[in-house]
């Protein structure tokens, strides 16, 4: 029995590698179809119009496109955070907490450290990264040293983070009249990098570019470096990694810390976006962290997939807001998103079908 390559002399294109994107696209198609049916049920007369907005709203104008990129930025980061952890077999359901703790770091620097001048936003983002990382360090340490299931410790640190952030905001950068954090200084806002000229009127800023760069960075880190090799190996098999001389404790901690840093940066990118976002002193978990789970899953936990998944969710969010012009409620978008995610779960079946197809063509045993 030889390997196929040697036997046939040529390679059958490996469709299974494309299975991820293909199945995501199928899922999106199914989700949109169900969305259309819902539109038909709730108001047949304007269903087509509403659907056109969903599809076209995000590319209606340069401004809308810019806003798609803007909305995508934080959820790409939380999505990346979850995806990165998934790749190392950790379920970081704590991105919500890391996100808001990171946001706190950014806002503290953004409000207080005006002496930094034009470096303020850089330091703000660094603070967001460090704050997020530290917050993820807790479940990381607990998992590595005490075998505490990261799902439960992440749920706990979400709540602790939320309360802690509210407490700290209230006692440091609080604006009582609005019950939220003070506005950050102008220098703390991420530079627009000319993107505001490209997409006039939108809230886009350099943050999107930073998010894209971090996605690429994550991809390279995971797939091209020895460090990523170690992280993934530990995720797949702790024992074999130890046997290979990899410190599994260090790997678990580092994976969580990097994941948390990404979520934290997401917080920084949103709260320093210059779009007028404040930390509300409200006992509600940051939804971006949970959206991140959807984004990561839709993106097949692949850093680049996550980028596109985030863009997609932002895209239909913008379209969904336009749909209101046809008299529809934006919750329909949530139903569509949920359906898309649901059908994205069928990816494995897709991949198997594609793989089977390929292997069938692959030929007989010698």
């Amino acid at each position, binding site marked *: 029995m030889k390997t196929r390559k040697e036997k046939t002399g040529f390679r059958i294109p490996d469709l299974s590698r494309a299975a991820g994107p293909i199945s995501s696209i199928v899922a999106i198609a199914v989700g949109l179809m169900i969305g259309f049916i*819902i539109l038909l049920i*709730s108001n047949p007369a304007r269903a087509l119009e509403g659907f056109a907005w969903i599809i076209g709203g995000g590319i209606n104008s340069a401004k809308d496109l810019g806003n798609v990129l803007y909305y995508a930025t934080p959820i790409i980061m939380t999505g990346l955070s979850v995806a990165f952890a998934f790749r190392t077999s950790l*379920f970081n*359901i704590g991105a919500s907490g890391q996100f808001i703790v990171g946001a706190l770091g950014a806002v503290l620097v953004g409000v207080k450290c005006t002496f930094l001048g034009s470096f303020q936003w850089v330091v703000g983002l660094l603070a967001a990264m460090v704050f997020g990382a530290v917050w993820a360090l*807790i479940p990381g340490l*607990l998992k590595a040293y*005490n*075998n*505490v*299931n990261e*799902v*439960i*410790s992440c*749920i*706990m*640190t979400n*709540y*602790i983070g939320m*309360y*802690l952030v*509210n*407490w700290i905001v209230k006692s440091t950068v609080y604006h009582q009249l609005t019950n939220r954090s003070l506005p950050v200084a102008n220098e703390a806002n991420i530079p627009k990098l000319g993107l505001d000229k490209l997409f006039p009127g939108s809230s886009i800023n350099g943050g999107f570019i930073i998010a894209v760069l971090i996605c690429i960075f994550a991809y390279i880190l995971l797939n091209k470096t020895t460090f990523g090799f170690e992280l993934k190996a530990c995720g797949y098999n702790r024992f074999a990694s130890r046997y290979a001389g990899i410190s599994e404790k260090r790997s678990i901690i580092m994976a969580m810390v990097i994941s948390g840093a990404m979520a934290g940066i997401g917080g920084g990118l949103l709260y320093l976006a210059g779009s007028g976002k404040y930390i509300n002193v409200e*006992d509600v*978990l940051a939804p971006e962290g*949970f959206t991140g*789970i*959807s984004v990561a*899953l839709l993106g097949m936990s692949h850093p680049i997939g996550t980028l596109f998944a985030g863009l997609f969710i932002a895209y239909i969010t913008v379209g969904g807001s336009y749909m209101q012009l046809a008299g529809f*409620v934006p*919750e*329909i978008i*949530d*139903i569509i*998103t*949920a*359906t898309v*995610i*649901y059908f*994205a*779960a*069928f*990816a*494995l*079946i897709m991949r198997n079908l594609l793989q089977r197809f390929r292997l069938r063509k692959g030929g007989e045993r010698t």
Partner: protein
Amino acid sequence: MNTLFFLIQQTMFFTIPLLVVALGGMFSERSGVINIALEGIMIMGGFCSILFISFMQDTMAGQPLLLLAILIAMISGAVFSLLHAYASINMKADQTISGTALNLMAPAVSIFAARMIQPSGVQQIQFTNTFRIAKVPVLGDIPILGDMFFQNVYLTTYIGVAILIIAAILLYKTKFGLRLRACGEHPQAADSVGVNVYRMRYAGVMISGALGGLGGLIFVVTTSTNFNATVAGYGFLALAVLIFGQWNPWRIALAALFFGFMKTISATYSSIPWLVQLQVSGYVYKMIPYIATLVVLVFSSRNSQAPKAAGVPYDQGAR
């Protein structure tokens, strides 16, 4: 003494929904299907049953209405969970993905449906709470015990306790439980002795759906007078309680009690004068239940009892 009775009664408001939902999650995960959709299932169960109550409350009230609502909650939860079952059992989907999808779906659908169905066109569903039992006849008059457990209660509290006992018996003393657990630990082994793994997993997920839906109803009935498409993250807390309780019904009960008691202290400290005198920030009290849970976990997590095959789709052909 009164404070003690009060604390016990309040603890139940937190504990019972967490307990019921976590027990539901236990059946699902013990059968081999991770269920992070508990939050969504709670919302769906709460939505259907509260909608039912709001439509029926003009014609009936009290315990009969509550019992019917319980039935509705359980059925709707179970039906909703079929989506998760189908994806993770038949389609061998990633169970986290389909669970997440359900969590997204439930609030969106219940807001949308509430607006479509209710004549007022609003998303909130109003109901009148006629379900509290001021005092259970006879039992309520027992000194001390009566004050603690048989006054000022909801039927659902007893149902929750009954579910705990039934769950423990079902899991450990019956053929069903034996087979269910086998499917969660080693489905190939179960299959090789003729157990229908798919059917058992469906059963596990649907029980989690029924109990999750019931938990949603209990949550809403005991804490509000309307339903607004949310259970405030209690589905995720139930998931935490399930893990905290190491997938074992009695430990889950302990975990739910512990967490419920901590939450009670944190929510009612303002009625305990000496705690108010401490002048500690309220945020400290808000954080205590979560920090305490983490601390307990540090000392209790050495050996995880997680079902070995939970999260792994079962494929007859694969090894």
